[in-house]
């Protein structure tokens, strides 16, 4: 299921690449000029980093719950911790609770140093396909 993001047009637009190690996915958004939101600094657009986090969470939930056609977020909260420099961004998600109807997911994005995340995501996903 790690090829999920290759099927999603917006993930392709962002150039996302997925690597799988055991059950954990690491998704990379390679730097591209079109990701720049602040040309003066320059810095990545926060929305691009948020989208990376959200799609990483989608892919991680999908890989553990293949019965879901496409996991749907109920809500997402993104905290921007550091400026995204014009460089590759990596992200990883962890499912902290998988209930019958709802899953809670945490994800972080970083550049060179995983211990210095540039953004963090908290999200709830709907686990019942016919709900909502």
């Amino acid at each position: 299921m790690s090829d999920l993001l290759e099927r999603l047009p917006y993930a392709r637009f962002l150039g996302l690449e997925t690597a799988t190690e055991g059950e954990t996915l690491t998704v990379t958004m390679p730097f591209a000029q079109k990701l720049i939101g602040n040309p003066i600094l320059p810095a990545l657009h926060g929305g691009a980093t948020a989208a990376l986090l959200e799609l990483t969470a989608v892919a991680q939930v999908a890989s553990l719950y293949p019965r879901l056609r496409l996991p749907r977020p109920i809500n997402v909260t993104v905290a921007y911790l550091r400026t995204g420099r014009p460089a590759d961004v990596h992200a990883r998600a962890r499912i902290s609770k998988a209930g019958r109807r709802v899953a809670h997911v945490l994800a972080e994005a970083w550049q060179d140093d995983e211990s210095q995340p540039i953004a963090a995501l908290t999200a709830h996903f709907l686990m019942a396909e016919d709900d909502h």
Partner: protein
Amino acid sequence: MTSSILDILPQLAAGAAHTHALGFIYDSVDGDRVRIRAPWREDLVGDPDTGVLSGGLVTTLLDHVGGLAVWIALGRFEPIATLDLRVDYMRAAAGRRDLIAEARCYRLTRSIAFVRAWAFEDSPDDPVAAAQSAYMLTSDGGRGLGANLKREHGERA
């Protein structure tokens, strides 16, 4: 609000490389509310089976329109940074349709701007997604900042 901030809103809405690549378009201002549009495009779709724009794109749209609302509340452009952003996805968006986002900065303090925003196809009364966000203001002085806004409860940030 000065006319100058209104004059540069189209540039602020779509002028950076990312917003340009996404095709964002400035729509309108009504008082302290601002709207931008994300025209539907095949390569921005999140679910190829339904043709709905990606949730990640909606997040970017809401983040960006919120920034515009902050500059309108400030009455000028200055560097700001999103502190955090919460998006509730209220319903599935309609396939192959543009999305409009509207935002309003409902409180400014010396260092933080608080914003609410909505994304919809036709009316903010029927939103696809709703956002609540906070932005850091980076100006040092801050004197006169939000002087045109009420501060009933004093500064909280």
